[in-house]
């Protein structure tokens, strides 16, 4: 096992390489206000982050990642374009697997640049590939933006699309919603009677709680609207399913997705972006002919990414978490930018795992 100073030495070396690529070093605080993190991730973050508090600042979290503070910093004071690098501890609460570290070092690189997103994607990926050169790793890539475009272009109500978008990162709930909107799954018992009732709130229980009668009425109205909306068509469903199952090397994946675009023409601009990315990767010397692309990749674990996503995994060590991950998070900059936004892409590496994989290889 590598010791702490070896891990830190490796982290420092990688950070220097990122500096050489043009990044400015940043060092966000270890304690982060809990509000922002809760707002972004919801209650789930409590299972993953250590929470502490004081009377003055309220709840704080031991930084579970760097991306959020780096985005906040850039959005409030950063000049454009900007490249940042950092290295330091992150903390993850572990409730299930004692073999997973609850504290480890991440080295990261983040690019905020409006100029050529495809080129920025390729820049980050190829710099990461360079840092990881020689290790027996498998790279996986995907693109959340294609699925997003597919959902947003469905021929159905905005309400349905919003519901699907909200659960894009929860495949099971997404599936349930899709089944319901396709008319494949009946509503709960008594639902029809409720929707047909003249005055659904004529009941003999008192109105209690902060959710008011008007909100209940509004939801019933929404349910009525949904009942009267035709189901999502079979060809769109088949298109979505085919899309989610695409798992190929990059050029073949693009070809298959172009076929899907016959049924789901709304994904064409996203596919053009993918094509531009493939070209940029190639121009930066990445062997795209052998690079895997999975349309569903990054859907369960990478919730703020909304475009290109990637990860590097140790071959023969399925027990290890990914050695490096990253992706594009334009929407996050919008969410934290108070009206401003900027295309952004970046990722993190785990020097501790790199050293472990190197030891295995020797």
């Amino acid at each position, binding site marked *: 096992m590598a010791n702490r100073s070896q891990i830190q030495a490796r982290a420092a070396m990688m950070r220097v390489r990122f500096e050489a690529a043009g990044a400015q070093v940043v060092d966000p605080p270890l304690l982060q206000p809990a509000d922002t993190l*809760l707002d972004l991730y919801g*209650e789930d973050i409590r299972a993953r982050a250590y929470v502490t508090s004081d009377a003055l600042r309220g709840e704080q979290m031991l930084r579970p990642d760097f991306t959020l503070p780096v985005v906040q910093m850039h959005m409030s004071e950063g000049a454009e374009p900007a490249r940042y690098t950092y290295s330091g501890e992150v903390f993850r609460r572990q409730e299930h697997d004692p073999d997973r570290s609850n504290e480890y070092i991440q080295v990261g690189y983040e690019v905020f640049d409006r100029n050529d997103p495809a080129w920025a994607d390729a820049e980050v990926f190829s710099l990461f590939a360079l840092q990881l050169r020689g290790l027996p790793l498998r790279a996986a890539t995907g693109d959340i933006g294609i699925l997003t475009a597919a959902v947003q272009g469905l021929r159905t109500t905005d309400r349905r699309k919003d519901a699907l978008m909200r659960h894009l990162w929860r495949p099971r709930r997404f599936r349930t919603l899709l089944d319901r909107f396709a008319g494949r799954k009946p509503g709960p018992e008594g639902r029809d009677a409720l929707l047909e009732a003249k005055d659904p709130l004529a009941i003999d229980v008192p109105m209690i709680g*902060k959710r008011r009668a008007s909100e209940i009425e509004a939801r019933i109205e929404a349910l009525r609207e949904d009942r009267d909306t035709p189901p999502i068509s079979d060809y769109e469903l088949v298109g979505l399913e085919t899309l989610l199952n695409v798992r190929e090397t990059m050029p073949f994946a693009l070809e298959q997705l172009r076929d899907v675009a016959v049924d789901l023409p709304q994904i064409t601009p996203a596919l053009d972006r993918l094509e531009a990315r493939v070209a940029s990767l190639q121009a930066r010397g990445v062997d795209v002919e052998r690079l895997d692309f999975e349309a569903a990749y990054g859907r369960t674990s990478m919730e703020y990414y909304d475009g290109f996503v990637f990860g590097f995994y140790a071959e023969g060590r399925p027990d290890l978490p990914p050695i490096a991950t990253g992706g594009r998070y334009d929407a996050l900059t919008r969410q934290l930018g108070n009206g401003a936004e900027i295309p952004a892409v970046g990722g993190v590496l785990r020097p501790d795992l790199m050293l472990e994989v190197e030891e295995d290889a020797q």
Partner: protein
Amino acid sequence: MSLKLGVPSKGRLMEKTFSWFEKRGITLSRSGSDREYAGKVEGIEGVSLILLSAGEIPRELAAGRIHLGVTGIDLVHEKLPRWEQQVEEISKLGFGKADLIIATPACWVDVDTLDDLDAAAAAYRKTHGHRLRIATKYHRLVREFLTDAGVADYTLVDSQGATEGTVMNETAEAIADITSSGETLRANHLKILTDGLVLQSQATLWRSRVAKYGAVEKSVLTELLDRLG
């Protein structure tokens, strides 16, 4: 050296545990005054009784400070991550039955399922600017249950007692709590979601996998388990 048995220190849970052991020929009792938390064991040699709050028994089992303990399934699952590796279930005792459930106001006629709760939570957050609050003391169990069901836009608020009242007081919009008959829920104008059963609990006898078992404890344990059948 002796085999340490932890039992809830007061109330019906203690009495019922005592009578469960009594039926199997083992008499447990509090020694001395009612205020003293020391116990006496008759009918078997080598067992010592330790009276503890039911809520502390999972932790004591996991720390190996007691070999056996009686407490609810809900408390073991909530307080011990990977509980299977720390304790073994010996026997369900057939009392202290209660369900951990998710309940909403009965007036929410549009909410019957977790699916509805999720949709209501999304709209609620938009209207009120904060997440729909669910009051509970079972944070881990409830969070895992709701994550698994894919419910979003909620937040758990801590409530260590009188949880059913939080909705009326507008400190929470829904609750996750233990109920046995459902009467308190009805009295507080709440209803259980049809798929809102998180866990079925009852008083259970657990064995610590962590505690040290010397030759004496091993033989006493074998005899005891034999008697409890």
